[in-house]
């Protein structure tokens, strides 16, 4: 595999917080149309990696290339428009807005009305609102959250909020979807629902997915490839079966046996 086949390429990314290296020369590639899982023990740098890709952190060294752009040099607010969306480990919804408005807010990058047209709310702006509302309703149907359409998300239970957040990421119509622990803190039933949604997104829309997850059984079931981080370094990469048998991975998870 050459680098050019990669959809997203992470090259020698190094991120320091003060003197601590959160990520140390991490490189890997994400191919178009795969589910890649990033796993590792707590504090391994998984979320830091995702934060670097989504432009939330700026690594000191290295490059992250996506569709010909270097994400480490792209202004944060322009990354979403390139076709990249993410969810957060600690849900980061707009808590004062309804489910519907949260998803509509994510249509920001796809809407063309300028602020003056918004203020006049006539003609084009009005038609655009309805057109995007239609698209958002499709996502609401897909995620089975129609019953909470007009509920303020601050009042929703945790599992539903996770689902709304996934919906908000989908409303961006991303080509690459980054999911930070989409099933953390869920019960088995909720996890199965979420896994079903993720697989549906992947199969129906061909969205490339990078996810961080702690549930190993689930990771091994749904991902095509796995990248393992430990103490900020990549220690293994490969198919779930390869990774499962890797000495270093077993060592990182279980310690000296």
């Amino acid at each position, binding site marked *: 595999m050459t680098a050019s086949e990669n959809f997203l390429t992470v090259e020698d990314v190094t991120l320091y917080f003060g003197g601590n290296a959160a990520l140390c020369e991490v490189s890997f590639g994400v191919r178009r149309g795969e589910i890649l899982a990033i796993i590792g023990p707590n504090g391994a740098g998984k979320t830091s990696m995702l934060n670097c890709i*989504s*432009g*939330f952190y700026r690594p000191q060294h290295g490059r992250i290339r996506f569709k010909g752009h270097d994400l480490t040099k792209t202004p*944060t*607010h*322009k*990354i*979403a*428009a390139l076709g990249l*969306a*993410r969810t*957060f480990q600690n849900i*980061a*919804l*707009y*808590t*004062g*807005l309804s489910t519907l*408005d949260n998803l*509509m*807010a*994510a*249509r*920001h*990058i796809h*809407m063309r*009305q300028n*602020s003056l047209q*918004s*203020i*006049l*709310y006539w003609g084009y*702006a*009005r038609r*655009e*609102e*309805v057109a995007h*509302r*239609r698209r958002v*309703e499709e996502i609401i149907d897909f995620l089975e959250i129609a019953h*909470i359409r*007009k*509920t*303020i998300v601050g*009042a929703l239970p945790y599992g539903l909020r996770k689902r709304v957040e996934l919906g*908000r990421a989908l409303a*961006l119509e991303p080509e690459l979807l980054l999911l930070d622990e989409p099933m953390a803190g869920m019960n088995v039933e909720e996890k199965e629902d979420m896994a079903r949604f993720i697989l549906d997104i992947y199969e129906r829309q061909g969205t490339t997915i990078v996810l961080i997850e702690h549930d190993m059984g689930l990771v091994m079931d749904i991902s095509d490839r796995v990248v393992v981080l430990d103490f900020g370094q990549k220690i293994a990469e490969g198919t779930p079966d390869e990774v499962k048998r890797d000495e270093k991975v077993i060592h990182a998870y279980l310690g000296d046996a």
Partner: protein
Amino acid sequence: MAVLRPSGDFDTSYEHDLAVVRQRWQWALLLLLLLALFTLPYYAPAPTVSLINRIGIAIIAVQGLNILTGYTGQISLGQAAFMTVGGYISALLVGAAGWSFFLALPVAGLGAGLVGLIFGLPSLRVKGFYLVMATLSAQFIIPWLTRHIYPSLLNGAQGINVPVPTFSLPVIANTCFLGTTFNAELGTCVYRFATPSQFIHITLGVLIVSTIVALNISRSRLGRALISVRDNDLAAELLGVNLFAYKLKAFFIAAVYAGVAGALLAHNLRHINSQTVGLVDSIMFMGMLVVGGLGSNLGPILGATLVVLLEELATVLAPPAAALLPTLAGGATAALKPLLFGLALMLFLIFEPRGLAHRWMLIKAAWRLRPYAR
């Protein structure tokens, strides 16, 4: 809480779902209310008309603050300073440059908006308490400037007299229409908005426009971007909202509202100086917004109305209060106004921190659920 619609009111299309005024009887009520307000001078005593006028101007200023603080989450204590800017611009354009008031009014808004942009710049770096301090600087710099720059034009601390807004019509068939009177000096028919009874029509007209603009902002792309900055600025940026641009837009819009309100106030009082509106008024506007409900379009209307009415109550209560507390004698009204305002603010923060607008929603929901639940 989900949205509760009156029984039988169904959404048949997305357009219908997005509508603000949903039913015919609601339109009828709205038009009746507007009719009652516009014909106020014909049946209400002059002090009442003057009071409604003051409430209207306060609502416009608070609506601007609501867009900045309620929607965008940027706390500002500079609203009164931007009103001063608008007031001076309009006063100079109409008084010294001889513009029509109706042209000077939007220009005053835009001018104040540009000044607002300057004081919005710190919002990129600082939040919350520190931003309050940064906007507070407007409250010191702008009045100081009006006192010290161009004394020949701005007349220093004394301030300037502001002309009466007029509109003129050409003489048609030797008669003057629309209640205008013939002005021999100009050779045209002129209508002067001199008394509150005449001025209130301007205030109400502007209030209708400002309310529609606020509503449109809150239900469109712009409003959702502003609210996402308030609710989660980090997520908003990752979802493609340019924080810098939208914070500045919010400051601009808020200052435009302030500028328009300031121009209305200046022409209503017929005089403006650096003390006409000040820091206390900025704090009052913030209080009105809290009492009415932050981030709700109904909030500024209810809050400004309640607080201005409380001030009136202070005037009514002053004589008995002065009899009870002789040490207040002479300044009873002045003493009671902040007392009532402070009391209202405190009670609201404890018992209804989301303001009157939220309470109104609860009442509506309870009414619609009746008799099944409360």
